[in-house]
């Protein structure tokens, strides 16, 4: 889904840097104010509890808002999911029972769609609190929680590994592009245009190209799906190999594009950091070059990257739709697109909830971790 890439895709570095500079960890926190004078280290300890409570409170608020919007949006959309569902089944030549209104009403009652909206809302919350999210319309009568738990491991496995690899490769490349010693730097200068070209290709299009090349023209890899069709994954060396073979091309398309993005942002952060007085100072102190590189340049340039890493990990669940559709990978994204096209309400709602919870969770996690990485933030909380 374009959401994740739309964020880092073609944003010029300093636009990102601008966002970062003022919103870095503070997706929710207030304006940064540089504390002026004096030592205030002692206050950090008792501040951290209110800080934590605030974060968690905001988490609850966002989840509530999310669930509510999530509840209303599908219901406001035109079109009747039951009618559509029956129509689809009928089109497929299935027996749908007596197509009289009574049958439709029966389905309506089954999904609770016949009650007034406020009652549906309350019931929805009761169900949410009991982890009872209802039965899927598409896979009737399978519980949506089971549909999701079958799809989730595929997405988490593929996306989290691809995101982390992309992050490490890209960040390292971006850092070296600026700070690599002499001859290596000249070599890396050549990589800049290549990285830029790859990065400006939307990853799902890159995926199509990869399939055409490495699955069709040269059949090194399977054209799609997560495992050999008709089989379920087994935990053996052969099983893992099959898994890896199926995940390779989708992962490659994600890594190649994402690494380019990380590299470009990291590179411009490195350029900015390189002009900082403390880097000049570290050289004037005659520190070893790896220390200047790691502890002074990378350590500081990395801070905004961490923010974006948390965001992209948060968007893993929702960010997978396109790549999964292109590779017919049996994850959440694939399920999501099916749910949208069929208007499978219960399934849609659960996916949305998972997405919102995961995103918010990562943002809260970021808010908790970031002050450890950047001591300046600790003092800006109040």
């Amino acid at each position, binding site marked *: *889904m*374009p*959401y994740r890439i739309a964020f880092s895709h073609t944003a010029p570095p*300093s636009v990102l840097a601008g966002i970062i500079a003022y919103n870095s960890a503070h997706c929710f926190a207030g304006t940064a104010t540089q504390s002026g004078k004096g030592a205030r280290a002692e206050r950090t300890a008792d501040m951290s509890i209110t800080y934590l409570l605030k974060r968690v409170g905001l988490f609850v608020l*966002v989840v509530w808002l999310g669930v509510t919007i999530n509840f209303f949006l599908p219901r406001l959309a*035109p079109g009747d999911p039951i009618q559509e569902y029956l129509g689809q089944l009928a089109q497929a030549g299935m027996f749908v029972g007596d197509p009289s209104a009574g049958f439709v009403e029966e389905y309506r009652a089954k999904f609770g769609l016949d009650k007034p909206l406020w009652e549906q809302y309350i019931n929805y919350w009761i169900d949410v609190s009991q982890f009872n999210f209802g039965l899927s319309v598409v896979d009737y009568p399978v519980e949506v929680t089971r549909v999701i738990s079958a799809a989730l491991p595929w997405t988490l496995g593929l996306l989290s590994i691809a995101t982390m690899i992309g992050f490490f490769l890209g960040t390292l490349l971006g850092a070296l592009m600026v700070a690599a010693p002499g001859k290596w730097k000249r070599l890396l200068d050549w990589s800049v245009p290549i990285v830029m070209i790859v990065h400006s290709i939307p990853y*799902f299009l890159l995926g*199509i190209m990869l399939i*055409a090349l490495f699955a069709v023209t040269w059949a090194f890899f399977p054209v799609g799906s997560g495992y050999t069709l008709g089989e379920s994954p087994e935990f053996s060396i052969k099983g893992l190999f099959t898994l890896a073979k199926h995940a390779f091309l989708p992962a490659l398309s994600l890594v190649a594009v994402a690494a380019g993005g990380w590299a470009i942002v990291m590179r411009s952060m490195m350029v900015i950091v390189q002009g900082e007085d403390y880097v000049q100072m570290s050289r004037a102190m005659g520190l070893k070059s790896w220390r200047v590189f790691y502890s002074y340049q990378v350590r500081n340039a990395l801070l905004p990257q961490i923010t974006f890493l948390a965001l992209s990990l948060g968007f893993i669940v929702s960010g997978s739709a396109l790549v999964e559709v292109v590779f017919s990978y049996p994850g959440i994204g694939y399920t999501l697109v099916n749910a949208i096209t069929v208007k499978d309400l219960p399934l849609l709602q659960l996916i949305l909830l998972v*997405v919102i919870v995961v995103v918010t969770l990562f943002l809260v996690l970021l808010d908790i971790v970031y002050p450890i990485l950047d001591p300046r933030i600790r003092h800006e909380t109040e």
Partner: protein
Amino acid sequence: MTLQGSSSEIPELSLTRRFFRLLSGNFLLLLGLLMLAGVVSFTVLGYLFVDLELARLNSAPISQPPSLEHWFGTDAVGRSILALLVIGTPKTLFIGLLAGICGITIGTCLGFFAGYVRGWADTFIRIISDVLFVIPILFLLVFIIEYFPVGAVWIMGIVIGVLSWMGTARTVRAQVLTLRERAFINMARASGAGTWRIIFVELMPNLTSYLAASFVQAVSGGILFSIGLEVLGLGPANSQTLGWSIWWANDYGAVLRGFWWWWGSPVVMIVIIFLGLFLTSLGLDRVANPRLRGSS
């Protein structure tokens, strides 16, 4: 020590002269604009010389590789890929432009407002943007577009724009916060200039190159959004944009059947558009941020 001296006169250059001077030192910007100009002239020439009737179903032989007659080949439902590209490219660009204009306008206004007024306005705008940020826009898009099922290319553009102003708003706010602390703003305030005067006369010129870069970025984000939706088969159906070309190709298994010209042509066109936009935004960014010019 004090210095007294006449301020040296900087000769006023005409707008076009300044534009070309900007380009000559900025290879990225030049290349990016050239690529975009290429895309636009492809469309214009196409509308002049290509038979667009060939974009109808069954108006051409099916699944032909590129030939002298059909330069980009034909698809499995008997359409000329060239005609589809000529029709699809401006539609896709249009969605992007519309999304960019909406997004940048809303984002700039809200960003200025938040950054200049601060206090409650800032908090309010930030909460809205955070909520929009967390809730996947795809869902909102799908449901909003459901209301306007027919021929809604322009609605798609506006909707994407309305839902993607957050980045711009944050950036502009950040810039305004920095700029308002600078000396010349204080000077303006001390000399009794009104709020709006400060915004438009003092702040705006400082932000223009910056906004230009954000605009290009917003256009590219809008195009990406729309193509993503279309490839998923969502959004206004059959609007013959580049994204839908890819959806058709994917739906008919063009990749698996080896019809490289079918999926390849729109992909190449999209990549050129994105690369052009990306280079342009990088180039503009370099104008806005002299610090980045250093190592290139």
